[in-house]
């Protein structure tokens, strides 16, 4: 299933500029999610470009994580999902999570969710799949730390190391699209920079849909931006433009331009 994979090469397609001609890798149409009577997403539509990072922005509680989870089929059982999510020709909403993931949708959840009781090596081994060679060289090239700590329990890693493991676990296999939820949350500034660097390198070969609160990281990584507000799409467009216009940033994200600049 992972045959239609992204090559490991770093072609730097993101500089091509002409993405209006290319098909989006992911199309979200009128996605609505209702959980326990709360209408969390109310018809969200956007697309994710086939290269580079598309960032999903918005204040806390506007439904960013809910969107990612709905795409990967992890809406809780007491929730109802409507609308459509397509990757290529296939409709994602009708398929169980494990099939989506095997089909090349990599998901790095919020709060990392590494298996604390398992060792680093076991966490990575879990992601291996029958019929495809695990790309340990790719993972260890990005995260040499994981190789050194392979026998350590994941629960005893630092937050940054756990985040590396969570990303590395997904990169063991080839992916067509990565969903990454708040990878820098709760990390020290120096580690934030490291994680951002890694994501930048990853995004050279795989498109990424990223949820991120840290606007400095957004500025560095994102090409396209989708801003959610109260369960709807409030703005879509060029991420750099969003961040360079102080008034726009403030009205959409509720932060001053000073925070964006650093």
């Amino acid at each position, binding site marked *: 299933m992972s045959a239609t994979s992204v090559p490991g090469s770093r072609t730097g397609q993101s500089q091509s500029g002409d993405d209006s001609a290319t098909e989006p890798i992911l199309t979200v149409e009128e996605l609505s999610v209702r959980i*326990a*009577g*709360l209408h969390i997403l109310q018809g969200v539509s956007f697309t994710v470009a086939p290269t580079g990072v598309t960032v999903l922005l918005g204040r806390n509680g506007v439904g960013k994580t809910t969107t990612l989870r709905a795409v990967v089929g992890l809406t809780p059982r007491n929730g109802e999902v409507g609308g459509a999510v397509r990757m290529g020709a296939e409709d994602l909403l009708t398929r169980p999570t494990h099939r989506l993931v095997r089909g090349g949708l990599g998901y790095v959840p919020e709060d990392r969710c590494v298996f604390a009781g398992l060792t680093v090596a076991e966490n990575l081994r879990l992601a291996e799949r029958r019929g495809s060679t695990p790309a340990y060289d790719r993972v260890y090239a990005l995260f040499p730390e994981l190789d050194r700590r392979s026998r350590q329990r994941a629960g005893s890693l630092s937050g940054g190391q756990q985040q590396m493991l969570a990303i590395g676990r997904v990169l063991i296999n080839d992916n067509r699209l990565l969903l990454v939820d708040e990878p820098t949350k709760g990390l020290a500034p120096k580690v934030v920079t490291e994680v951002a660097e890694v994501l930048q390198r990853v995004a050279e070969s795989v498109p990424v849909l990223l949820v991120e609160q840290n606007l400095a990281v957004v500025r560095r990584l994102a090409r396209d931006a989708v801003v959610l507000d109260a369960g709807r799409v409030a703005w879509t467009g060029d991420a750099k433009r969003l961040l360079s216009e102080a008034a726009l940033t403030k009205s959409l994200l509720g932060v001053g331009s000073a925070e964006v600049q650093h």
Partner: protein
Amino acid sequence: MTEVKSPETAAPPAAVPSELTEEPGRWHRVRPYLPLVALVVALILPYSTLHLPGIFEGALNSPGTLQLLAVCLVFGGLAAGYDLLFGRTGMLSFGHALYFAAGVYGTDILITHAGLPLWQAAPLAIVGGTILAGLIGAVALRTVGIAFAMVTLAFAQVGAILVARDFGGLTGGEEGLPLDVSGVPAGLVGVANTVNLYWLALAYLVVVVFVVHRVSGSPTGRVLAGLRDDERRIGVLGLDPYRFKLVAFTLAGGLAAAGGVVYCLIVGGASPHITSSELTLSLLVMVVLGGPGTRWGPVLGGILYMYLDHRLVSVGSSGAVDALPGFLSRPLSQPLFVLGTVFILAVYFFPGGLAGLASRVALLRDSLRLGSRRQS
């Protein structure tokens, strides 16, 4: 949690009882009066000498039939009280038999051993059962979900052990403890007075239904429904789920203890089988068969379950079943086999229980009518 999530019911907000959902047509106008009709039937029943062969063995007002009906009514009330936990708050307690047994054994012991009159023994037993529920709830509610189920089950098991081991000769052990009727008003004693016990059981059922109805309609009831649907949301509102659950747990325990008092009088004593975990499991079966979280579902479920439990024994030993080959007749003579199987089927195919079934039938009929209207 067990609410039907089928498209027909479209997941009504928890606070709205399913009785209030729209159902067009004549049925809609008649339906609110059905409980009243049922109550009137229940009230005139003891004056009827009607014979219903196959349904009851004696005439409707014969002591045997009235006793069976009284037991059914008590369990209807018991199931309605249990539904306060399961259907309306989403708490899966496996120890509800304990508080019922506390009512039964409490009354029995206070009258038979301590020599108290009924009017003192009954309130004491109810208060005792309520306090017991409060204490156990305080510990058990530290866990949630399935762990809570296991813990309540474990505590109920202590009750079963205490009764079975007969500490100090109080409970009579395996033999049970016959009620010393000298402490009971003469009007509640003897075969000729079975009708009075029937009234008592009916009164108990009415009280429980009233209490559960009032509680679930109150602000507290709306919080309980919120806990059932999503506990975190209640936490976010700044309300302490633990307290509300403890209130519901204690109240349901008290109602069960009261049912125990009535049951003790009806059957004239206590026997250890009422402490078994099987009784709690059957309460669960009653509620699910009837329709959890509905006003009349659990009551119907309780009445029907007890009726079947009693009647299936005689049906099972009847000629019709005996004539079947052994591999069929033997299982069918076990009421629990039949009820357990029906229960499993109900979980799959009628998740709303009898109450859900009624609205489904109504829906089906409405859609048929709509279809025929379109054709004409």
